[in-house]
């Protein structure tokens, strides 16, 4: 499945969240990640991220799609990170 995830966390936790998410998803731009992920891996992600954040102050929103085919992705302006597999 394809996931888009945005987070908003206090700076001291934000860094941790960023580093953790880099393992699982592609960084797109500040506090936005997206990528193909298995259901199991995503459940793991949700569980681990709960430990990292403070639920009273931080918020994480995610959008789940069955596959990349069901939405259009566009960029206006700078492309901050290229998601190509050919580097």
């Amino acid at each position, binding site marked *: 499945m394809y996931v888009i995830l945005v987070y908003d966390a206090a700076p001291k936790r934000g860094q941790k969240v960023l*580093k953790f998410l*880099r*393992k*699982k*998803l*592609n*960084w797109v731009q500040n506090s936005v990640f997206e*990528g*193909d*992920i*298995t259901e199991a*891996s995503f459940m793991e992600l949700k569980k681990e991220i709960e430990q990292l954040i403070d639920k009273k102050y931080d918020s994480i929103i995610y959008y789940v799609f069955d596959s990349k085919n069901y939405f259009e992705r566009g960029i206006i302006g700078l492309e901050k*990170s*290229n998601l190509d*597999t*050919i*580097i």
Partner: protein
Amino acid sequence: MKKNFYIFTNGILKRKDNTICFEPFINQETQKPSKLLEQTDLTNIPEEEFLIDNDEIEDEKENQNAKTRKFIPVESIDSIYCFGEHRFNTKFLNFLSQSQIPLHIFNYYGFYTGTFYPRETQVSGKLLIAQVQHFLDEEKRLTIAKEFIRGSLFNMIKNLQYYNNRQKDLSYFIDYLTNALKKVDEVKSVEELMGIEGSARKNYYESWHLIINQPIDFQKREKQPPSNPVNALISFGNSLLYTTVLGEIYRNQLNPTISYLHTPGERRFSLSLDIAEVFKPLIVDRIIFALLNKNIIKQDDFEFHLNSCLLNENGRKIFVKEYDEKLSTTIKHRKLNRSISYQTLIRYECYKLIKHLLDAEEYQSFKIWW
């Protein structure tokens, strides 16, 4: 699901924050290996320079490179293909091994150099014994080898039939290959089988000047080195396919050095050559037809030397792009009744072979059914 990453840009690959980070070098010019040796006289560099731990210097540079570096999520990597000049350390290799990611390396000219094959985690003594038993028993070996050839020939015929239906008269070649396919049943030894396969393939390649719309001087298969663009494409495509198959073999218990069709122990992991045989017509050959007939690849994507012809970097990029798309093409599998990609199809081929070796189900090589 997991993706293959192909890295052409020169740079440093490293472990950072428990994931893989790629930092391109600022100066991207590559020199031919021979030139490089001439220019840097190794004797003049003091020994200490080799010994300095680069980490400190790199930490200073880090801020400069922060903008260009790219994080690759480890959990999305199937395997990595390196086509450029890269630097990595044991820390990185340890991490790859931990995450079970094979790293395939190609040299300046695009030839396969080797694979960093992480510690095997899927080992099975039982299967290894079965694999060896099937090799030692001449009859059992021949059964498997024949099935590889049948798959290969059948898929070649399918390719020809596809173009035969598109106003190209290939009936002579189709007849020849169909005959060869029939002869496979009567063969008594692996050498004989290789003979049939060899002449069939020669015939198959001869038909290519009818299939390909461009004027090409492709008469016969030549390697070491390839002599013309089509040969260069075949060589490059086949070596890519071998590594893909090897990557798939790594994911299950098979031992890649024991093969049935090719003599084991020569050059590389020969089981990947065996399995690749079945998929060459489906994957490599079709990419080549598409690249040439749609004019995607052009004369300037090749490099001509004295008597060899090789793809240059741009050409390789074009090929790899097409190859990656091909591997992720999905088809509806009849037996499984769901969509699977070509790459998974290769993995299933390994599973089928395992089943055969363990006497669970007879091996039927993959044959195009559409």
